[in-house]
């Protein structure tokens, strides 16, 4: 399943980085993040104290005042609820406004994904969506497949028109195997 996900992600212009350990993921982030990094609340990332580890690695982490800080931020980091192999899609419950700001405004979006959370296709995703809807009274769920794109000028595919120009999926086992938490 991971193989299929990686292949599909690559086709849509996303970048996958396989990280053996969380330290590797942190190092990868420290190397690539440009500018302040928005880190919206996420149960799995909080459990792992990613904010602390990233700050220790020299990354400027923003974890409050998202509305103010988002327009000038360089990157956003989120977990993922789960991912869909057939299309290379990351599914992220984004009801909290901070999550949406972190994944729409900056040029870079990093996703920390546990490969155990990859499901086959959209029909496997439906029951999970249904559970997420049942859990939350209001919902904003996002399927994210590659970076923002347009072909509106002469049909030439161009990346990064409004949303992130770069989408990185850092695959790291041990982040979380709960498909309903991000």
């Amino acid at each position, binding site marked *: 399943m991971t193989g299929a996900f990686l292949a599909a992600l690559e086709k849509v212009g996303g970048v996958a980085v396989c990280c053996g350990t969380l330290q590797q993921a942190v190092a990868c982030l420290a190397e690539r993040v440009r500018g302040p990094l928005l880190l919206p609340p996420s149960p799995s990332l909080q459990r792992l104290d990613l904010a602390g580890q990233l700050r220790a690695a020299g990354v400027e982490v923003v974890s409050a005042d998202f509305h103010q800080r988002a327009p000038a931020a360089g990157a956003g980091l989120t977990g993922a609820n789960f991912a869909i192999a057939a299309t290379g899609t990351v599914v992220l419950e984004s009801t909290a406004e901070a999550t949406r700001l972190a994944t729409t405004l900056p040029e870079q979006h990093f996703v920390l994904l546990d490969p155990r959370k990859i499901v086959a296709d959209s029909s496997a995703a439906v029951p999970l969506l*249904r559970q997420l809807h049942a859990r939350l009274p*209001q919902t904003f769920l996002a*399927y994210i497949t590659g*970076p923002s794109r347009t072909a509106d*000028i002469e049909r030439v595919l161009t990346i990064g028109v409004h949303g992130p120009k770069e989408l990185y999926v850092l695959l790291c086992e041990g982040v979380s195997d709960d498909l309903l938490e991000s």
Partner: protein
Amino acid sequence: MSKQRSRQYKARIDQALAAPRLQETLHRFADAYLASRENAFAGHDFQALRAGIAAMKDDVRDRREEYLAQFTRNAEAAGATVTLARTAEEANAYIVSLARQRGVRLVVKSKSMASEEIHLNRALQEAGIEALETDLGEWIIQLAGQRPSHMVMPAIHMTKEEVAELFGKVTGKVEPAAIPHLVQVAREQLRQGYLNAGMGISGANIAVAETGGLALITNEGNARLVATLPKIHVALVGIEKLVPTLEDAHRVIDVLPKNATGQLITSYVSWIRGAVPCGEGRKELHIVLLDNGRGALAESPHCRDALRCIKCGACANVCPVYQTVGGHVFGHIYISAIGIILTAFFHGLENAAELVRACIGCRACVAVCPSGIDLESIILHLREVLGEEEGIGAGKALVFKRIMRNRALFHTMIRTASLLQKPVTRGERTIRHLPLFFAGLTEWRSLPAIADRPLRDQWSGIAQRVEKPRYKVAFFAGCLNDFVYPELGRDLVKVLNHLGVTVSFPREQNCCGVPALYSGDRETATVLAEQNVAALLAGNPDFVVTTCPTCTMALQRDFVDLLRDHPRWAARAEQLAAITIDVSRFIVEKLDGGSMLQGLAAPEKVTYHDSCHLKRGAGVWREPRRLLADSGFELVEMAHADRCCGFGGSYSFTSHPDIARHILNDKVVDIEKSGATCVAMDCPGCLMQIRGGLDKQEKPVRAAHTLQLLAELLPPEKS
């Protein structure tokens, strides 16, 4: 009024035809589209997916009150405000007054065809509220003061140079015409808009009754910003976007991107339900459900399938008329085949009047539509309605009603015409020049002369010797075969006799009625259907064979439809439909002709042109290829083999000769590029068009009916 309307419409056509760059763009786009679409659907069963969407949408249409109530209940429970707007005016009034009440000065919009449909920007502007389009294509056309020329790619008609100039006016600098740079300019310019706006307005691709949520299927990410940053989010949603469950939503998501742009999925699918957090509080979400003619469409038995549309735009992508003139000519707000129908219901029949005739009837859209909408049939129906309302023109009405219905008179007149044309044909079989104002008709293609003796007059002299016939068939010739290409009838007899079949020619057969039907004269078509059913069944044949696929469709489909409510005729029309068969399919399926003709031909390079009505109407395309290949011809495929040749009957003579001419030119180019010395086809109409084009352009390629090529392989008839 309608004269002026027609003149303006003709002027728009001329203008579009004078823009070769537009045509080039749309042609290249069509090619790229077909290739990526094929990739996207690889390993998927398109027919099954489309059947799933059609069934689901039909269910929603029939139970829409129930689903609407369910959706509304769930959306409101999640904190949304839901309102149903019956008309465009109601929708605009609601949104404008909401914006006023909340003191909104600037609105950011993501792409919404529904908002184009109701002219929302104009309504906002009139109320002093600025509306900023943020979808790149929409922003471009907003700056240009135009309307979208495509549902998915609104600015497909514009070049990067034009875009650079528009953007330069915004930034006050000279902007280089490099696409990545222009995209970056848009990113920077629009960014502040999201942050300043008091209201975001979006459409939605799906409204899920089960959850009360919306799904937005987008690539750019602007809809996510529009739905996130401003305090108020208004979603304007046509009621046809309803689906019952999340599974059903995925039916659409699994197909729409593949069929729209050849993507497996778009960059973003956003599922939004209720008043999600925004700043310190919650967002105000207003869902405006728009009827504006959709309810009426649901009630129209002939047209209601159009409500299945998921707005993928594919029917435009593959349409030869769209590729030739673009969406500003072939559309009102909604464009192309589906645009004709939606315009009639959302904006009034008057606005669809010219467009209804602009369809050439090639059914390319029907083949590609993911919702299984028979767009062509619906357009034909609208043409009938319009024919009844506006009339079909005095000249045509006279021909159809007074002349065609009276077979003897009609045929006498054609015979007379064959005499009258003598001075211009100079005894040749092809008319290359016509005098005076008829000259336009032969400017770009030669036309065949009407035969001296029609097939019906030659028939008794055609000897048939078949011992122990395997079948006795009746031949429905159609006008072209009968009066223009009688030799095809001889070829037919020769080939079928060789394969052990005798052929009769029921003399009472008349025109199949398609010219009348396609012009909107259903009454004449019905009379002709009755005459033909009676004539063809009289001799109790095993099969009725045809050489013209348009006639085939008339016999198989239209007669049944026309005579459905006529108790004396309905069953007989069905019976005729059941035994009607295109001759190449007959030879392959019933006679195993391929093996009987095996290896008779010299290995000449032949390319095959698929007639629209044969491939997409009768489902025949493998059979003639097989016959040609089995007989020993070297079959080479041309590009776009199944693209229309631009004939379309009266389309190429009277209604849209200029568009027809361009479509023919494309075909001639493809034929020539194939390297074949002969192009085969199974339609006398295509033959007239393609042979005429090749002749006029003096191309050394022969155009022939497949039957003619087969007949040439057999020893001469003994007379």
